[in-house]
């Protein structure tokens, strides 16, 4: 007897894990005929923190957007918990890059966070007390309770990022897709985000994060996807984050990075 959620359209013989929170099969995405992602094929196991790592222009954000149908695919298939995104979208939360919105918009912090409840509310029901309570709880988790009634233009970059994170938390999802949540945030925000990620994992959720800082990958995540248009390597940190794989991902640019790191280390010693 087949399992109720068993997908039927995945080609037979393909070894995709049906229990995976996110499995991507032969995904190709192109902007104007120029391919950005080529035959991406990967599984993210349920209940782990996963980082998507790669150089600028590697297609990291595109990968997340293509999973959520925010970007047309040329070919390929994405399954979340064994089903297409539309069937399970209430179990999936998205944190866009914070530059994608106008922070001058006339809306309060609480209102933005409450948007996370819209998915369950539907089109017609208004935001009520229960939704506002949920939003306040999420704000507490990112330590922004006092700013709930501020207009969003008054926030610092790190606070903006935490507002977006809180909005995703309100969705109470099983799978979180986050686009560069650590990009140019202060140390306090970085710590707050890491704490939230860990609590999500403890609660059994899966989090996939586009990440730019190679130094913290091993500290924050246990699963990694090395991406440069195609998947160079994917798996646990220990198995995938090898020097060889990193070189293959970053090409010549990694040597530059290494040189920069050595130079900085030298500078610190001289002081």
């Amino acid at each position, binding site marked *: 007897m087949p399992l109720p959620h068993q997908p039927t359209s995945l080609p037979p013989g393909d070894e995709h894990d049906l229990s995976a929170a996110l499995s991507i099969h032969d995904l190709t995405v192109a902007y104007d005929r120029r391919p950005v992602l080529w035959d991406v094929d990967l599984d993210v196991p349920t209940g782990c923190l996963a980082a998507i790592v790669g150089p600028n222009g590697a297609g990291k954000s595109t990968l997340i957007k293509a999973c959520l149908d925010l970007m047309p695919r040329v070919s390929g298939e994405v399954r979340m918990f064994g089903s297409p995104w539309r069937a399970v979208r209430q179990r999936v939360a998205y944190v866009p890059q914070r530059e*994608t919105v106008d922070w001058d*918009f006339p*809306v309060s912090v609480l209102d933005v966070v409450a948007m996370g409840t819209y998915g369950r509310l539907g*089109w017609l029901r208004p935001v009520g007390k229960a939704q506002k309570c949920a939003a306040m709880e999420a704000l507490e988790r990112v330590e922004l309770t006092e700013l709930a009634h501020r207009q969003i233009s008054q926030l*610092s970059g*790190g606070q903006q990022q935490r507002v977006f994170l809180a909005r995703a938390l309100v969705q109470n999802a099983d799978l979180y897709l986050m686009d560069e949540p650590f990009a*140019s945030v*202060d140390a306090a925000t970085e710590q707050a985000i890491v704490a939230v990620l860990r609590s999500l994992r403890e609660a059994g959720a899966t989090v996939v994060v586009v990440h730019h800082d190679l130094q913290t990958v091993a500290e924050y995540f246990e699963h990694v996807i090395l991406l440069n248009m195609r998947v160079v390597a994917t798996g646990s940190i220990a198995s995938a984050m090898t020097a060889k794989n990193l070189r293959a991902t970053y090409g010549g640019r990694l040597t530059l990075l290494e040189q920069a790191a050595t130079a900085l280390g030298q500078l610190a010693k001289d002081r």
Partner: protein
Amino acid sequence: MLATINFFDVLFLGEWNTRVVVLGAAMLGLAGGVVGTFLVLRKRALLGDTVSHAMLPGVVGAFLVMQAMGGGGKSLLGLFVGAALAGILAAWAVPALRRSTGLKDDAIMGVVLGSGFGLGIAMLGIAQGLPGGNQAGLESFIYGRTASMIQADAIAIGVTAAATLLIAIIFAKEFRLLCFDESFGRAIGRREGLLDLGLMFLAVVITVVGLQAVGLILVIALLIIPAASARFWTDSFTSMAALAGGIGAVGCWIGASISALAPKLPAGSIIVLTLALMFIVSMVCGVKRGAVRRVVRAARLKVRTGRQHLLRAAAESMELSGEDYWTFDNVLQARGWSPRNLRSIHHRAARSGEVVPIGSGRYRFSDCGYEASEQVLRNHRLWELFLIRHADIAASHVDRDADLVEHVLGADLVAELEQALERGDETPSSPHPIGHTL
């Protein structure tokens, strides 16, 4: 004198004939302001203009069709249907052309607006050459003529506007999400294209019913000016929409009243000029973003930083000289301020009682001034140390204006910084030589 009485008669709806027209126009202004709020926040202001201009061929085309069918071509409903069809076509054409050509929105809107309106003008020339074409009053759709509205028109306009307003309010939550963060909306399953279409549909309805009142050239003002004005007064979405509705209603009310008194004046332009006047008032006086508010805020900031700079420069000067006073000239050299500016800063500090002049260009602190300077000095040095040691943290965290460093950095970090300065809780010494202040 007589004119004044008449004006108030009209304004306060003393006359039944104009009462309906004025109320209908006000309802239109109310709905226009609310729908316009979405349009402005969605950054689609010019799309509304494109749509309204492209309605002209629809209006004239409907007239020609009705004429050909022998109906005389004067049915208002028929003309409205033509306008709405053309408007919807234009609203659909802009995104469709963007997708298929890759051109930018502004260029596409220029093309659609220009060619649509040009076609309309050409068709108008043909229509006016036909028998009955001149009497149909097609030109009033271009410039608007509120006075020519009859009671039934006004009621129809008011009811349609009210229905539009109701729809806008019901879907306000969704439209706001669309305007603020469309990609998040899509990620929670909202169809952005459908919502955009709904929003454009509301704008088209407002434009169509506004054609008669203000004309298709100016109807965009009904949507945009109230919303743009409201933004100066508030940072809340709901109050912005409500205020925009109010401004639109009052503008149309007054404008329609004036034009009822002086039927020869072009009504559309009077309504729009009334709105423009309210925009100017908002731009200057708006409590959140108005010009006055900005000037006051900048002046306050200048005074506050001037005071802090004086407190610090004076304390450092005394530290250097070992005296319990400072001289005007010493402090003048410490920073790049002009003598006049420094004098006024001293005056202000003396008036507030923090600084006491003791003659021949010398000053000293009062008790409260001394305390304040200690505070400023400590904050300043902690901030500098923080920048030196934690350069990796976003510079946005440095708030030199904060009364207490702890409010921004947290007590832990401040304690760490203070330990680093090895002076415990006392005022830390400057990490760089005094006199070379940044």
